[in-house]
């Protein structure tokens, strides 16, 4: 798998991503597609999401030939694909244009950010009665985990749109926290200070004793699935490989600098690292594009981080 290709949809080939996206938007059957693919090859995918509604004029659809009251204040620049222009705020992205596709026709009639995100991440118009699962949750359910890692990861913060909805919270994403912090470690993944792995194991042993006594009396599906997650949790805590996957500190300093010492930069790098280790779908949220006032000033640094 070529993970170095692009920071957008790294290991998922472009056409495949489009296929999944298009199917989901048509409300068609993602599980079927996954099932069909299951035996052929692994699906891995990074979604980089510009939260808040990045202006198309200042990103991928600058409309250089439009009248001035439609154009934004930034200029368009040519890309590596002749005839395709994007905003001058994305010079590095422009050089990679031959490696990605741009869809300029998408729109949504959802006015609330949360609901619009839910729409785009589930492919189903949000309803008041039912929360449809996001792609990542479907991937979790259909493909399960690999190498003991959670199949669906969200970076940096939990987002209501990237959830499992009616599939049940078991398929919710695993949330990492902000990787662009000093001594970053994933929440609850490291043992409390002063507790050795042996001691943690002893505690788990004690717990198993209490639980087995209870299970002689009780039987219920909820007990079995709680057991399953405790087992997975302990695996994550105790497996050095899993820990390493989340340890962005192992990446060379130079590479970390190249990705940018920002939440989105380090988030993208962490996503890549996780995909390489066995996570199936990683979503990186890049926030703050909801610039109602002072738009140019606020957007410029965000896009430069992004680029």
């Amino acid at each position: 798998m070529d993970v170095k290709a692009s920071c957008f949809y790294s290991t998922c080939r472009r056409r495949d991503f489009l296929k999944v996206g298009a199917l989901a938007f048509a409300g068609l059957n993602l599980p079927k597609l996954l099932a069909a693919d299951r035996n052929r090859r692994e699906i891995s995918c990074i979604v980089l999401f510009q939260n808040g509604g990045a202006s198309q004029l200042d990103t991928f659809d600058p409309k250089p030939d439009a009248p001035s009251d439609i154009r934004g204040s930034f200029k368009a620049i040519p890309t590596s694909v002749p005839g395709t222009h994007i905003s001058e705020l994305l010079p590095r992205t422009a050089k990679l244009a031959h490696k990605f596709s741009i869809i300029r026709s998408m729109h949504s009639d959802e006015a609330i950010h949360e609901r619009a995100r839910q729409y785009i991440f589930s492919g189903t118009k949000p309803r008041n009665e039912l929360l449809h699962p996001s792609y990542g949750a479907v991937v979790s359910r259909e493909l399960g985990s690999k190498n003991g890692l959670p199949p669906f990861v969200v970076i940096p913060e939990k987002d209501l749109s990237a959830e499992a909805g009616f599939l049940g919270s078991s398929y919710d994403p695993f949330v990492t926290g902000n990787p662009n912090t000093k001594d970053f470690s994933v929440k609850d993944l490291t043992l409390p200070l002063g507790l050795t792995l042996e001691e943690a194991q002893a505690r788990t042993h004690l717990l198993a004793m209490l639980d087995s006594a209870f299970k002689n009396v009780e039987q219920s599906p909820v007990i079995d699935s709680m057991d399953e997650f405790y087992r997975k949790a302990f695996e994550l805590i105790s497996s050095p490989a899993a820990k390493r996957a989340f340890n962005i500190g192992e990446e060379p300093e130079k590479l970390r600098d190249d990705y940018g010492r920002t939440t989105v930069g380090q988030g993208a790098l962490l996503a890549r690292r996780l995909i390489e280790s066995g996570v199936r779908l990683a979503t990186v949220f890049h926030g703050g594009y909801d610039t109602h006032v002072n738009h140019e000033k606020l957007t410029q640094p965000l896009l430069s981080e992004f680029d």
Partner: protein
Amino acid sequence: MAKLRLIGSGLLALLFVMPACGAEAGVLKALRLEPEGIVLASRGAAQRFTLTAIYSDGTESDATRTARVISLNPEVVVVDTAHCQFQAKSPGLARIRMAQGKVATVAEVSVRNHPAEMSVNFSPDILSILTTKGCNGSGCHGSPVGQNGFKLSLFGYDGAADYQMIVKAQDGRRVNLQDPAKSLLLLKPTFVEPHGGGRLLSEDSDEYRLLLKWLEQGARQNSSGTRLTKLEMAPTERILVSKGSHQSMVVIGRLSDGTTRDMTREVRYVVGDDVVAEIMSDGTLSAKTPGITTVSARALGQVATAQIGVIQEPVGSDYPHVKGNNFIDELVLTKLHRMNVRPAALTSDREFARRIFLDLMGILPTPEELHRFLEDSRLDKRSRLINSLLERPEYVSHWTVKFEDWFRNCQLHMQGRSMGMFKDWIRDWLAADRPYNQVVRELLTSQGDTMLNPAANFWLPATDFMLKQFSVNKVTPTVSRLFLGVRMECAECHNHPLENYTQDDFYGLAAFFARLRVKHGYGEYRRTWFLENEGDVNHPLTKKPVLPKFLGDAVPPIPGDVDLRAILADWIVASENSYFARATVNRVWHEYFNTGIVEPFDDFRSTNMPTNRQLLDRLARHFVDCGYRLKELHRIILNSRTYQASSETSPGASESVQRLLFARCFARKLPAEVLLDSISQVTGVAHKFRGYPDGTFAKDLYIPDNPDYFLVTFSFPRRDILAGRSQSPTLGQALHMMNGETIREKIESDKNILTGLMHRGLSDADIISALYERAYSRLPSDSELKAIQDDLLVERAAGLDSRQLLESFLWAILNSKEFQLNH
């Protein structure tokens, strides 16, 4: 480990003997012929029938082939005993005599004088063929996009559109009236022409001949104008004993011309749980594995259902004789007896106390409260405990959160104060136990400034935040689910193909909200709701205004200048309206059993029958009779032996049958707030919520603006949707319980329970027992205590001190299933 079973000390004074539950076999009391009201259209027409033997103990069995059935007027109707059907000979009225043993009954079958050679109608004849052959199923031409340009309505719910598609569309290419046998309609299913669906018809089948005759007669839409108005299936309830036993299901269609038609072979059958039973296209049902399931038959937009139980073996003489506490038990135990499922034993007092504290108040009993209850020797002490807990403020706190979930008190639309005021409004009426029908009426007719009339916050999730508009389409499904128990959301866009609710029903209901409007305060989230004098909802197809119409068919008279919502609210909460009370009691029941009597609990429809109809009806009536007081509803449920049944696994019946029939208690996860409050209780360290005084319970928080990490991780719900709380565990939950700061801070705190217990100089064994009692409301058995002490000894040898050992033990307790579940 054996749980303590103090059966006997906790029995109530309200015992009465169950008449129906005994091992002795019943005596044959009556015979029932189904279907009733058979009106055969003409000479030669036939109708299959079933006979049911009814015994004195309330049980029923099939008697179709054992009873003697004779026609007293053989010139009108003869009985074809080989096929269990009546056959029409000439117009008139025939008396049918049925007898078995000493029981005999007479029923009537009439025959009309319709022409012998009936014309073939598109509906129901042709549509029936399309349905039974699967042509209009969702996987074929009935899918939303059809197949290769040929699209039919799902299971034939829209006959007019299907007629257009078959006879007129694409220049009528599918029919050939000059040479009917060359019609595509016949060439495709016989596979003369390539057909993606394969060969479905042979040229010598009845269906082929009927299709051909219809084409020969000119492929008319509906020559007689006859419609199918109702479908019935018999028997409506049956219990089959042992795998492989059969029951012939009979389906009768009632037509608009007053005649009936045997549709046993003209419907599409679906078994809800196909592990339990299977059914052939001729209506022969076979038992597969013990369980309970719905069977439905569909044709031409109509549906009929029956409930089938399968049991391993008949009820034996060793079936336990169990006494119930109230009518709930009577109805539950009768059902269990019929299904040969043994009810679980009664809980011990300790289990009962823990369960009811958590269910009613969302907290654990303190050791003092527990001991006070255990030491009470009065026979009716459980009833007394229920009564006293219902008066405690924690009951109000705990159930307020549930109603916040249901009424969608969510931060997405409401900010700060508004949300808090809505919560307080719920608190107030819960504390006063105001009749729930009045509360709902107030809610549904609320208007004005949300800061002055908190009930009006109910409408907020139905507004579009940015467009600042109120959407009737968003509020209609909510009201329908919450107060009628009916899921209408599909009908917003299309007629429900499998159910009785249509787009007309949806917009008829929506029309009651058409005059509601909202004004936004500037710069804050304050809204004012008001009514306009006019306003309509347009039907999406006709684009014309829809008149307000109750679910069902009634169109109320609308006096001018009136709040339409009040008319709807009055109808919803009227005591003769069966939806409201049933939906409400089922919702509350679900909170206690995690399984509704109708399940899913807010999905009442003809193909989703209650597992115990009598129980649902009786409970609803009780709720109405008690003036819609929620406390009375809690009281009757909590006092039942059914609620007080042990959660211990019993052999025999499958888990799903035990669950559906409420044979025992099933463990359920504690909701986020309850789990967090319980952790605070056990450790003796209150959780700190930003901006709240120490010791505030999670369930009393007003604004989850920055919700606590713990609450979010443990599925604090999004209340902008009606989906409810997820019960499924997550990886994040497991990690946070094992490693997170919530637990860590509390077990390491030097002000926690361990410090207190150690300070009192208690032995390890005493401390372990004390923690058991705080978390589990029980004491460890000797063997448990020994095993834990042995384990801790090993750790001590590894160099841990007493405090560290006890912290480990406390950690294990908080992470254990017995603590995290209510059982």
